[in-house]
């Protein structure tokens, strides 16, 4: 080997090392009728995977890198972020390591998957873009996600996107944006896993209003005492809902929750987190042009 290729060979070996390291924590998840998908062990007995590949709650089979097969049970699912957490029948997995730094556009990454018993599979790419926030249907809102040009081969959903040192940057899924692949950031994925482990589900707040964004006039902004170009006009209040019980009315313009300004429906959704469920929460509205603060006990989205 000549000198000028040493650096290429070093890069090549480093990527193979990364694939091997993260591949040890990348498992085959068999929980649907079609081909199996992938999952990432986050502890010796907990596995993160994509929610959409877990079509059944029972008879979930996991194939470890060493070829042994074992059963797993469903801990919980979060359709909003397309993540599900599984518990292995015994602690037999090697846990993946999450990347400590946030992903950067241009960073070299590998997408990994284990869709069959033929060994780990990988594709190479870069972080192409950071996107978000995006609504994912069923009440989900992703604050941020990752796009990569690494090829998402069939069965890669639920598998990791890893950096050049084999640390997990995110979880790949084709279940969130009409079949196109995107990556849920590791930080969020680990957080979702922690919540699923504790509660079995991701709680999301529920208000019970239909709304549309409207302009907040200069006069109204003066009355609010801050610059805020738009708010949410309530065009419907569901009978018996937290909004109804709290006293919100059709015609109110919702401008803040918990002192956080709300100017579009995505911001409202982002503020209705699990933490506010069941808590008396100040909701600021413009009623008849004047600011008013109404306390609403936020409910939980079914």
């Amino acid at each position, binding site marked *: *080997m*000549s000198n*000028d*290729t*040493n*650096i*290429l*060979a070093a*890069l*090549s*070996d480093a*990527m*193979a*090392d*990364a*694939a*091997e390291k993260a*591949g040890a924590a990348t498992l085959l998840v068999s929980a649907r009728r079609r081909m199996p998908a992938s999952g990432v062990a986050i502890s010796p007995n907990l596995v993160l995977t994509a929610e959409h590949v877990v079509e059944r709650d029972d008879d979930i089979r996991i194939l470890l890198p060493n070829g042994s097969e074992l059963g797993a049970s469903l801990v919980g699912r979060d359709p909003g972020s397309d993540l599900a957490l599984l518990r292995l029948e015994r602690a037999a997995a090697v846990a993946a390591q999450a990347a400590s730094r946030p992903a950067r556009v241009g960073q070299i990454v*590998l997408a990994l998957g284990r869709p*069959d018993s*033929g*060994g*780990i*599979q*990988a*594709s*190479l790419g870069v972080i192409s873009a950071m996107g978000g926030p995006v609504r994912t249907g069923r009440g989900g809102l992703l604050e941020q996600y990752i796009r990569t040009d*690494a*090829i998402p*081969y*069939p069965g890669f959903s639920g598998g990791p996107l890893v950096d050049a*040192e084999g640390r997990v940057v995110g979880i790949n899924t084709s279940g969130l944006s009409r079949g196109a692949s995107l990556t849920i950031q590791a930080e969020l994925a680990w957080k979702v896993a922690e919540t699923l482990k504790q509660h079995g589900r991701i709680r999301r707040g529920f208000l019970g209003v239909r709304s549309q964004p409207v302009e907040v006039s200069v006069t109204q902004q003066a009355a609010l005492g801050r610059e805020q170009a738009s708010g949410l006009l309530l065009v419907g209040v569901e009978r018996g809902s937290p909004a109804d019980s709290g006293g919100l009315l059709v015609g109110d313009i919702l401008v803040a929750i918990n002192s956080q300004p709300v100017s579009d429906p995505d911001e409202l959704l982002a503020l209705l987190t699990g933490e506010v469920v069941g808590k008396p929460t100040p909701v600021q509205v413009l009623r008849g042009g004047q600011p008013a603060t109404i306390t609403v006990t936020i409910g939980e989205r079914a």
Partner: protein
Amino acid sequence: MSRTLNPNELSDALASVAGRIRRSLAVVHNGRRGAGAGVVWRSDGLIVTNNHVIAHGKPRVTLDDGREYPARILAQDTEIDLALLHIEAKDLPAAPIADSRGLRVGQMVMAIGHPWGQRACLTTGIVSGLSQVETRGQRGSAPVIRSDVRLAPGNSGGPLINASGGVVGINTMIVGGDISLAIPSQLVEGFVQQALGELSGAPA
């Protein structure tokens, strides 16, 4: 792990590997329309290509320096889609052959060939998987190298090389639009040696 890395050094290394393998790359015409790629496997005129590249008509081989030769078909193996050709030339720049048995998923690979007729076009990627596929023939199955390098018609028969420039496989097939399959060099070498063994002693 922290060390300084010069990106130009990386680019230069890639360019140098590409420049070297190019001299061992051939164009294989099938006598009718279309052409594939081939690899100078031995300096005494042995060229390896895919069988499907030469399946129709009399093959001709054009070397990187522009010399063109009619080729004789020494051996064909439809099961693993390989063909061994001979041209009347000596002292050719044979490609360095690497041992495919040492490959690991994630390692960098490069493909060079003539996609859509573009001469000596280089694409890069990694080893995506090392698996066994079913074949129609005596073997019943064969090892393949899956990679994410971009291939197109015209890459067939060309080399897949590693970061040191050694040939680890022969690019053979594209599956599902984005899975590139190569026949490992170990299997190719076995095919070549078997062909030469059967031919030895026979009249030229």
